[in-house]
């Protein structure tokens, strides 16, 4: 029967399958809507300001916008087509893949094809895929750090409420939450990479290439990013713990003669962590779409930096690609968080 009789058990995952399927279907719709909105913003807003497709095409012709070049690009990128047609091409690309006239021959990009960058005619999806490990490394590594340290400090603060430790920890947490990443990151770089060469030449190295170097070069970005989130999580955990430790079931646990450590961890922390875990899922989902400031500060080529450049260069396929990928991560994170919530809290029913 049950391996662990009486342990909290998943509320019949089989029962949740219809729920999961429904959510996945909604995900597809959501991504479509996101793409439509992005499309609209990109094209319609300048149109409302009076820009025509010629003027739009000028941006992608480099430094030499002769009318012939501009018209050629206008046709090539399809700006002279109605918006619906352009959007249709985009969707078709995602579902079926697309052909691209690279000059002497046509290249084919398989689905999901987010098109070719306006700027350098390179397919967007492979570029994003190669950026993803960087962001993922950054996000997951920082996530582990902030979860462990943030919740630990939060728990300790809650248990030692009002003491010097608590005040100091919450003071530092306030700093962590208030200081922007491009400040802490630059300070960290200046001190630990240039002034004292503890982490010289911070550049992303692939995990499969050189795991030790991968980790060493990520330590500064990890701590910078984690500092911000750990501060948040410390405060959240502390508040959650304070609330939980005042609950009646804590009193019951003590009344049973349970050792205080077990009361704190098994009864208190377990309950306090539930909202933390769900927030964590959301934060991680958002971060996977790109830790923009951290990547920019440390010159790491992840999805965040990709997004910044895409926007700076007004490059629609890149923008669409990264927006949809980020939206996808957020939606999936939401779904996982909802499932987790049902697993963790047996009162929740779908």
């Amino acid at each position, binding site marked *: 029967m049950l391996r662990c009789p009486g342990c909290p058990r998943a509320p019949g995952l089989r029962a949740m399958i219809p729920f999961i399927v429904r959510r996945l279907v909604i995900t597809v719709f959501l991504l479509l809507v996101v793409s439509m909105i992005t499309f609209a913003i990109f094209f319609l807003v300048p149109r409302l300001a009076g820009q025509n497709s010629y003027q739009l095409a000028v941006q992608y012709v480099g430094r030499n916008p002769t009318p012939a070049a501009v018209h*050629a690009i206008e046709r090539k990128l399809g700006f002279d087509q109605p918006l619906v047609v352009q959007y249709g091409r985009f969707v078709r690309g995602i579902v079926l893949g697309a052909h691209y006239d690279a000059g002497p021959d046509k290249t084919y990009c398989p689905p999901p094809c987010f098109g070719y960058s306006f700027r350098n005619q390179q397919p967007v999806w492979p570029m994003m895929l190669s950026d993803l490990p960087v962001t993922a490394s950054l996000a997951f590594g920082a996530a582990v750090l902030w979860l462990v340290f943030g919740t630990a400090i939060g728990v300790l603060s809650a248990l030692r409420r009002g003491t010097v430790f608590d005040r100091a920890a919450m003071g530092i947490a306030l700093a962590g939450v208030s200081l922007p990443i491009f400040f802490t990151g630059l*300070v960290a770089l200046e001190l630990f990479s240039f002034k004292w060469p503890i982490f010289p030449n911070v550049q992303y190295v692939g995990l499969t290439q050189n795991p030790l170097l991968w980790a060493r070069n990520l330590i500064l970005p990890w701590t910078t990013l984690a500092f911000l989130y750990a501060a948040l999580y410390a405060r959240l955990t502390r508040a959650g713990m304070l609330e939980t430790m005042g609950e009646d079931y804590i009193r019951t646990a003590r009344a049973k003669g349970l050792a205080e450590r077990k009361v704190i961890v098994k009864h208190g922390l377990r309950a306090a962590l539930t909202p933390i875990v769900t927030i964590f899922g959301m934060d991680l989902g958002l971060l996977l779409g790109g830790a923009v400031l951290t990547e920019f500060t440390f010159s790491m*080529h992840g999805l965040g930096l990709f997004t910044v450049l895409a926007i700076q260069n007004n490059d629609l396929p890149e923008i669409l690609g990264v927006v949809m990928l980020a939206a996808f991560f957020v939606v999936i994170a939401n779904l996982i968080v909802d499932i987790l919530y049902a697993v963790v809290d047996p009162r929740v029913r779908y």
Partner: protein
Amino acid sequence: MKRRRIFPFAAAGVAVALGLAACGGSSNKSAPQQKSSAYNAAINGVVNPSSHKGGTLTFDLSSVPDSTDMGNTYYAFMWNTVRLYSRALVTYKSVPGAAGNTIMPDLATSLGQVSSDGLTWTYHLKPNIKFEDGTTVTSQDVKYAVERTYAKDVLPNGPSYFKLLLKDPSYPGPYKDKTPGKMGLTSITTPDASTIVFHLAKPFSEFDYVAALPQTAPVPPAKDKGANYQLHPVSTGPYMFQSYQPDKQFVLVKNPNWDPATDPNRKQLVNKFVFNLNVNADTIDQNLFHNFAQVDMAGTGVQAAGRARVLSNPALKANADDALSGFLWFTYINTKVKPLDNVHCRRAVEYAADKTAYQTAYGGPVAGGDIASTVMPPTVTGYQKFDLYEATTKPHGDVAKAKQELSACGHASGFSTTMAYRSDRPKEKATATAEQQALSRVGIKLTLQGYPSGKYFTDFAGVPNFVHSHNLGLDIGGWAPDWPTGYGFLYYITAGPAISPAGNTNIEELNDPAVNSMFDKAVKTTDTAARNAIWSQIDRRVMSDAVILPGVYAKSLLYRNPNLTNVSLQQYYAMYDYATLGLK
């Protein structure tokens, strides 16, 4: 055409970095004192001459190349870099000083042989020059490369001089070319495998400069991948592509099929070049100081924080060069907006403007540049110094003379007009504010109007109708030449025929018959010295017309990593010559 440099954005934490740099003041561990290393040593000499081989040279760039395809790029630093893996028909000498503006043969045996009517230019290729795969370069490969520049839908970025100057402007480009072998461009003929002949529509005496463009670097038609050729252009230079991750990094390694005997200009010293893209601009400077990278690829100088550090630290300063960048920052004085249609009113502006304030707005003598009194900067062949409006003798302006000129144009108490500038360029904004103040001393009231730089030429200042209707009598701008002669510098900003209804660069709408005829004459003058003299005459005439208010000959403070060997400033590219570098 205007060739652009990159002006990287400073990160938001500049102030912090500055503060930390100030209290750091660290002695740079990687900067041993060299006798030959001194401030500005690379401008007129070669620093650390050496034939030592080996090592990996790292370049950092704060953005990305517009393209690594030689036929599709329009940035000075790229035109410098592509010489590592490509050779054009002719090229610039890799020597420091003014001699760097000289054209010398590269693939060709000599400079172009021009026919007596000036319409035919012939080049002969050196024998047995090979691509990286061992195949021999033929004249058809060069023709094909030029044909590619007509395919603007696939390769839109590069300049369009061939289409402008050659006889067959309607050629659709090789990707739409139905002729066998895709040799459909009739204005280039290849009588044999080592001869290439260009047929011009009109005489153009400076065609050698056009042949020096990277667009004449040969491309084997069978290996052309169009928009994807940038991922691995086939090399004729000392290095070739090993890998390219777009937006991230590309790596060059030695090309075994490069023959140094045919190429006295370049060196093949290091084993590998690594180009890191999209690196934070301030981080690049730090990387240079700490030897995590050796060259800032953009070649436009250190950021504000780095500059403060370099200038205050003698060890670092010894490795710096404050070089002219080839740009002139100036203000157009439009000839169609009243009352500036009267030359005396324009001269009043010339006299009244505060040149020191202009220089300060651009960053002062080191970071901004030298006060300018001519249109052509000293880096251009044909430059001669003259000063009609006391810019160098009375840099704060001459109020008395300005007032005299105002009386002469009938506006003794001054007049009003609008000054346009690019709103996202702080230096231009500072200039506008400073000159507003300076000109108000003589009663010239300026209304300042900012416009986004992306559309400055396409929609605003570059549209004569807009300029007229919005009273934009003064327009701030800048210019650098596609090649270092008077034509390259002056034509598009002062010639009558260059005026166009949109994307106009002759913003002052100067249509002086004297100037126009001097240009006509110059393009027919094949004698270099005679031609160069004409450029200076045009310069004088333009300044006499008072249609341009020169600001500064721009300078950039470059940092020379002390581990580099054979470092010198290439005057045309206005940055370190990348084709000669080695490592200690």
